[in-house]
C-alpha cells in the first residue's frame, strides 16, 4: 500500500487520506515535515493562529522489521519560541505505529469552532474525534494512563500538558515510551503550543491490524540492516555496556565539566563543583545502591543502543524517566543545584506539565540571576513548577522560556539564539558548537550538527581542530548530514558507529534505499541534507530572518567565562559562510 498523507482539519473535524504529491514523494521525517510547513504555512502567520499547522512524520525506515534504533518521530511547524521553522523529533513509540498504518505524515490544521479540547484516535479503520474535556488541565502522566485504560493494544499517546493548553512558548509534545512513561519529548521550540492552538490534547495511534511498511527492495534492506546492526553492536559507545548504555547521555556531564565547558549558574562559569553529583555515573550508582530503576533502558521497541534510564528515589519508587545530560545541565549545574533527586523531581514535573527541560531549567536560572531565588535553591526551584502548573502570572512568564523571562525580570545575560536557549555546551569554550548554535534555523540547538564520516563529508584531511579555518564548512556539512539522519527515523546516536565503521555508513544508506526504492548512497547524504536546510532557511528568510539573526548573544562577546576565560571571538563574516551557498546553488 502506498504511503498516504493524513490531513486532519480541526475546523470541520474532518480527516482525509491523500496521495503524496510528487514534490514530497522522496521525503520522510524532517525532510517531509519541513517541506510541508514551507509549502503550506505562511511564514508571516502567527504561530498560534489559524494559519499555522503541525506536521508529524515518521522516518524512512520507521516501522520496518527490526531496523535498529529507528523510533524517531519528527514534528514540524512555525515555532512560537523562535518565530521560524521548527523541527523537533522524539523517541517513544509513535513513529513505528504511524508508519505501520501506512501514514507518511499527519497534517494537523485549523481550529475547532466550539473551542473544545479533542482527542484524535487514529487506527486501521481511520480517524475519530473524541471530546477531551475530561482531560483538560491534566498532566501527561494521567493522560497517558487514561489512554491506555481507554484504548486497547497499548497505543502511542502523543499529547500536551497544561503548558501546551495555555499555548506557552516552552510547551513540548510528549510521546509515551514502551512502559507508558510520558517522558519522550519533541521538546524544543514550543510545538506543544502549536498543537494546543489546534484544540488537540492527544493523538492516540493504534497500529493493530495496520498494513505495515512496504519495502521496495527487501534483499538490499536486509543487507543494510545487518551491516548497521553489526556496527552499532561493535562500537565502544553504542554496544552493550558501552558508554551510552552504561551511563546514558549524561555520560557527558563530567567530561564537559573537566573541559571547562559546562554551563553553570546561568552561563557565568564553565565548571560546576557539583557536577559529579548529577552525572550519569551517579545515576548508575543510585540505581545500583537503591536496587531500583535501571540504566540501559530503551525508549522504543527495537532500540539496541538503549541510552535511556529509569531513575529511582531513596525509597525505590521511580521518580522519572529519562534523566538526560541536557536536563541535568539546565536543571542542575545551570541553576547551581547538585542534588540529583531534585533534578529528577523537576524533570518529572516538566514531563508531566509538558515543558522542554532545557528551556525550563535555563529559565529558572534566569529567575535566579534576577534574584527571585538564589542559585542552588533546590526547594525554591521545585516550587516554581507549582506556579507553572497553576498558571499563575509568574508561572505563565516562566512557561514562555528564557528570553521572555529575562525581559520580564530585566536580565542582560540571556543565553539564546533566535529566541531559543542554549543546550549544555558553552560556545565560548567549545567554539565549534557556536557555529551551529548561531546559524541553524532552529535557534540554539545541540542536535543540529552531528559529526559524520570525514570521507563522506570530504573534510577528512582538512580538519585542524585548533583553527577556525574550515569550521564554517564543517558546520554546514554536519548540519546537512543531521537533516538527512533526522529524515531516516534513526536515532542520531547511530552517527557514532557509522562514522567510525564504514560498513555501518553504507548499511544505513542501504536500508533507506531498500525501503524507499530510491537510489541513495552515502554520497547523496550531504546533497539531500542541504536540500532540507535550504527549504528551512528560505522559510526563515520569508519570516523576516537575516544573517544578523545568526549571532550569539552580546554578553558572550565580552564576558570571559572561567576557567578558560575566553570569549566568543569568531568574526561574523566567518559565521556567515555557513549559509552563504543558499542563494548560489
Amino acid at each position, binding site marked *: 500500500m502506498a504511503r498516504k498523507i493524513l490531513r486532519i482539519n480541526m475546523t470541520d473535524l474532518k480527516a482525509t487520506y491523500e496521495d503524496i504529491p510528487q514534490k514530497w514523494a522522496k521525503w520522510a521525517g524532517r525532510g517531509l515535515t519541513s517541506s510541508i510547513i514551507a509549502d503550506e504555512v505562511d511564514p508571516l502567520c502567527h504561530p498560534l493562529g489559524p494559519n499555522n499547522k503541525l506536521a508529524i512524520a515518521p522516518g524512512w525506515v520507521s516501522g520496518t522489521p527490526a531496523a535498529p534504533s529507528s523510533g524517531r518521530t519528527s514534528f514540524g511547524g512555525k515555532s512560537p519560541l523562535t518565530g521560524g521553522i521548527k523541527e523537533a523529533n522524539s523517541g517513544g513509540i509513535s513513529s513505528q505505529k504511524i508508519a505501520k498504518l501506512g501514514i507518511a505524515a499527519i497534517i494537523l490544521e485549523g481550529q475547532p469552532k466550539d473551542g473544545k479540547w479533542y482527542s484524535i484516535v487514529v487506527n486501521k479503520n481511520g480517524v475519530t474525534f473524541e471530546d477531551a474535556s475530561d482531560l483538560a488541565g491534566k498532566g501527561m502522566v494521567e493522560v497517558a494512563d487514561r489512554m491506555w485504560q481507554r484504548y486497547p493494544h497499548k497505543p502511542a499517546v502523543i499529547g500536551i500538558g497544561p503548558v501546551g493548553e495555555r499555548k506557552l512558548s516552552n510547551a513540548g509534545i510528549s510521546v509515551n515510551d514502551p512502559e507508558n512513561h510520558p517522558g519522550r519529548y519533541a521538546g524544543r521550540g514550543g510545538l506543544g503550543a502549536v498543537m494546543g492552538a489546534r484544540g488537540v490534547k492527544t493523538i492516540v495511534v493504534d497500529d493493530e491490524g495496520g498494513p505495515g511498511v512496504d519495502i521496495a527492495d527487501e534483499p538490499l534492506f536486509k543487507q543494510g540492516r545487518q551491516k548497521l546492526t553489526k556496527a552499532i553492536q561493535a562500537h565502544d559507545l553504542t554496544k552493550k555496556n558501552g558508554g*551510552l548504555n552504561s551511563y546514558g547521555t549524561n555520560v557527558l556531564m563530567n567530561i564537559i565539566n573537566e573541559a571547562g565547558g559546562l554551563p553553570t549558574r546561568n552561563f557565568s562559569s564553565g565548571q560546576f563543583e557539583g557536577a559529579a553529583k548529577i552525572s550519569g555515573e551517579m545515576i548508575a550508582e543510585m540505581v545500583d545502591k537503591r536496587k531500583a530503576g535501571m540504566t540501559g533502558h530503551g525508549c522504543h521497541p527495537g532500540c539496541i543502543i538503549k541510552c535511556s534510564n529509569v531513575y529511582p528515589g531513596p525509597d525505590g519508587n521511580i521518580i522519572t524517566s529519562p534523566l538526560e545530560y541536557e536536563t541535568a545541565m539546565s536543571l542542575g549545574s545551570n541553576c547551581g543545584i547538585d542534588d540529583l533527586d531534585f533534578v529528577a523531581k523537576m524533570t518529572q514535573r516538566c514531563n508531566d506539565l509538558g515543558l522542554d527541560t532545557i528551556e525550563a531549567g535555563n529559565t529558572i536560572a534566569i529567575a535566579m540571576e534576577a534574584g527571585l531565588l538564589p542559585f542552588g535553591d533546590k526547594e525554591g526551584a521545585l516550587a516554581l513548577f507549582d506556579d507553572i502548573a497553576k498558571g499563575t502570572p509568574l508561572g505563565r512568564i516562566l512557561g514562555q522560556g528564557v528570553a521572555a523571562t529575562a525581559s520580564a525580570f530585566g536580565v542582560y545575560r540571556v543565553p539564546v539564539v533566535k529566541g531559543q536557549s542554549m543546550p549544555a555546551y558553552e560556545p565560548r569554550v*567549545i567554539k565549534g558548537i557556536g557555529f551551529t548554535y548561531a546559524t541553524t534555523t532552529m535557534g540554539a540547538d545541540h542536535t543540529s550538527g552531528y559529526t559524520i564520516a570525514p570521507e563522506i563529508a570530504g573534510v577528512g584531511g582538512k580538519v585542524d581542530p585548533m583553527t577556525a579555518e574550515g569550521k564554517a564548512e564543517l558546520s554546514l556539512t554536519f548540519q546537512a548530514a543531521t537533516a538527512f539522519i533526522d529524515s531516516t527515523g534513526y536515532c542520531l546516536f547511530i552517527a557514532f558507529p557509522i562514522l567510525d565503521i564504514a560498513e555501518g555508513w553504507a548499511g544505513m544508506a542501504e536500508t533507506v534505499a531498500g525501503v524507499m526504492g530510491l537510489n541513495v548512497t552515502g554520497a547523496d547524504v550531504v546533497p539531500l541534507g542541504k536540500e532540507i536546510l535550504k527549504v528551512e532557511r528560505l522559510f526563515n528568510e520569508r519570516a523576516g530572518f537575516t544573517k544578523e539573526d545568526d549571532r550569539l548573544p552580546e554578553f558572550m562577546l565580552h564576558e570571559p567565562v572561567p576557567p578558560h576565560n575566553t570569549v566568543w571571538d569568531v568574526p561574523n563574516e566567518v559565521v556567515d559562510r555557513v549559509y552563504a551557498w543558499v542563494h548560489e546553488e
Partner: protein
Amino acid sequence: MLVDVAIYGKLAHLLGGKFVATQEISLPDNAKVKELYSLIGIYPEETSYVFINAVLSDMPGLHVVLEDELHDGDHIGIFSVGYMWPYQYREGAAISRRVQTALAERGALQHSTKPIIP
C-alpha cells in the same frame, strides 16, 4: 606536591569509588603522569579522555599524556575506556600540544579507540 585527582568510570574503584572517585595525592615535584598512573595502578590502555587543568591531554587510543609533567595544585581528570565525547561537542576546546600533534597525524574526528584514518 599535591595533585587533585578525579577518576571516572570503572577505574574509580582504584581510589575507593564506584563510578566516580576524587582524592588529593602526594607526588614528587614535577612527577609525570605515568608516575601517577603507576602509583594508582592504572594501565594506559584502560584510560580514554584525560584532562589536566581543563585542557584535553589524552584521547581514546592515543596515550600521549604519559610524559606530561604535573605541578603542585594541578587537577587531573581521568576517564576509563568506553567514554564518548562527540566531535561536534569538543571542536574548538582547549587541547594539549601532544594531543594536537597526534590528531594531526591520526585525524581529528575519531570517537573510538580505533583511529578512523589509517
